[in-house]
């Protein structure tokens, strides 16, 4: 019979409240009590300006923007072609200005501050970025939320998880929209509109009618695919699904045979005896055997052949075949062990990076 006494809820409440209070006090002291502060982010600000210009022969003094039908372009006011007289700003068109803010490290920011203090006017303008500092706080909050799952499932983790699902779905959908649907679908259905509002450099088609007709097919298939969400007529979506499966099968069949089957077989069929490479004399190199290289080649060939024998199920794994397959299993175990070790190290590297973020970027105590 167990004699351990169950912990009372009040004990845990006191523990968590104490942790929360100490945590908040510690964070406040770290944020406001130190000159260096925490969650600092710095940006380099670059001012940009563009003016609309046209070929000098088309711009007549006093003419309005609408009177210039020729192709124009937006250039830097310091563009040498303006000074050379090749192009001329279009009268009545206001320049467009904006700022480009690029994140820089605290080290670079400090170096630039020092350079500016020493009178270097060419040093870029670097300022603190409150919006990015808020971002660091948000990232730290969510990172700790995910780590809190190590204790147990809790609301903090669930908040982080819910945000991840929503943001991730929207991220991929947005990327698919701008990188595929706009240029490959809308760019062929309504190229003028796409050129006007999204991709000014969209190349004109040599056969716009054929492109339009060809783009209608995926449009219809796309609608049929979305029909899957409708309560009735689910079979309609089978047509695009069949197209997707067929295309994948066609692409994969060729690429798997070419890149995986043939290429891997070719890579296996190498000379077993490896000669030493010497920069001094080609003759010497031709006569010297690289012992470990040769062993590696032999082991590699034996590994591939024995593992393939293990995967060959048309023969019963008995006798010589069984023994060969057993050697194949040893190779597989070493492969899996190696893959496991590399995977664990990859995850630990990621973990270290998250701790680096928390201690360096957020707490600023690294």
């Amino acid at each position, binding site marked *: 019979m167990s004699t351990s006494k169950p912990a009372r809820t009040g004990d845990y409440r006191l523990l968590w409240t104490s942790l929360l209070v100490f945590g908040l006090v510690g964070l406040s002291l770290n944020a406001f009590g130190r000159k260096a502060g925490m969650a600092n982010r710095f940006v380099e600000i670059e001012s940009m300006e563009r003016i609309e210009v046209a070929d000098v022969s088309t711009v007549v003094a006093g003419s309005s923007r609408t009177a210039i039908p020729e192709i124009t372009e937006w250039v830097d006011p310091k563009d040498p072609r303006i000074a050379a007289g090749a192009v001329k700003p279009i009268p009545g068109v206001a320049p*467009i200005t904006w700022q480009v803010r690029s994140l820089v490290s605290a080290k670079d920011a400090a170096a630039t501050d020092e350079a500016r203090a020493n009178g270097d006017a060419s040093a870029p303008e670097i300022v603190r970025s409150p919006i990015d500092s808020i*971002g660091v706080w948000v990232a730290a909050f969510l990172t700790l939320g*995910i780590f809190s799952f190590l204790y147990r499932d809790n609301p903090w983790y669930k908040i982080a998880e819910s945000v991840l699902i929503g943001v991730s779905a929207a991220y991929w959908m947005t990327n698919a929209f701008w990188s595929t649907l706009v240029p490959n679908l809308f760019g062929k259905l309504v190229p003028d509109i796409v050129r006007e509002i999204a991709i*000014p450099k969209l190349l004109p088609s040599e056969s716009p009618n054929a492109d339009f007709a060809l783009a209608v097919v995926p449009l219809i*298939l796309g609608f049929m695919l979305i029909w899957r969400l409708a309560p009735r007529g689910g079979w309609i979506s089978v047509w695009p699904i069949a197209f997707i499966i067929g295309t994948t099968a066609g692409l994969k069949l060729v690429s798997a045979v070419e890149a995986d089957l043939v290429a891997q077989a070719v890579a296996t069929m190498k000379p077993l005896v490896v000669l030493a490479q010497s920069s001094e004399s080609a003759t010497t190199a031709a006569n010297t055997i690289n012992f*470990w290289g040769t062993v590696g080649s032999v082991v590699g060939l034996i590994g591939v052949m024995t593992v393939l024998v293990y995967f060959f199920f048309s023969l019963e794994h008995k006798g010589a075949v069984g023994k060969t397959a057993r050697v194949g299993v040893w190779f597989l175990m070493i492969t899996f062990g190696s893959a496991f070790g590399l995977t664990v190290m990859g*995850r630990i590297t990621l973990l270290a990076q998250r701790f680096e973020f928390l201690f360096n970027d957020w707490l600023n105590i690294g």
Partner: protein
Amino acid sequence: MLQRTIPILILAASGALLIIAYFSPFTTSWGEVVVDWFNVLAAVAYVLGAGNLLAVNLEKVSARRAGWAYALLTLLSFGAMLAFGLFKIGAVPNADNPNVHFAGSYESTQSAFGWVYEYILSPLTATMFALLAFYVASAAFRAFRAKNLEAILLLGTAFIILLAQTAAGMFLTGWIPEASMFAFLRLDWMKVAITEHIQTAGMRAITIGIALGIAATSLRLILGIDKSYLSKN
């Protein structure tokens, strides 16, 4: 006919066309058209996924089922990120065409979309994967037992690979001269030998097996032998 024959024909035609396009230069452009359609449909599949996400979570919220507040948070996150991305809110103008709003880049942290990527999506994804370090280690500790030769090989290899990538690995065997006949006892040497020769051989055989499997499955689909994709409809 509509529900079975036409999908089988569509699958066979699209698959066969791509295989023919690979071998015949006269049909390469046909293959490119089919791949373009495929890319568009793959993008539409994201819309389908988003629609499904909306349907599931909206139902949860409207029925006030357990955890509906988290479903609402998912919907809000999804809606906000989608609006940031589709409308390119705060996007940096395109230097060549600053007058065209949607030509701007939404990937820098200056834009709302880029900010959410940098400070929400990227840290969350990285931390999720980092969390696996604990679970992989925990599962390995509970499951790995050196009870036979195969298990010993797996454990031993994992141990060597892990140790070779740490400072302890260099400390233990780094003193052995690289040019000596005992260099093969160095952990870094062992790691290279294992990954370059044995692991490569194992992965090569696995890759060949997978390629044969893909080729066989693809042929079964294109020839209409495998019709499992029709079964749910």
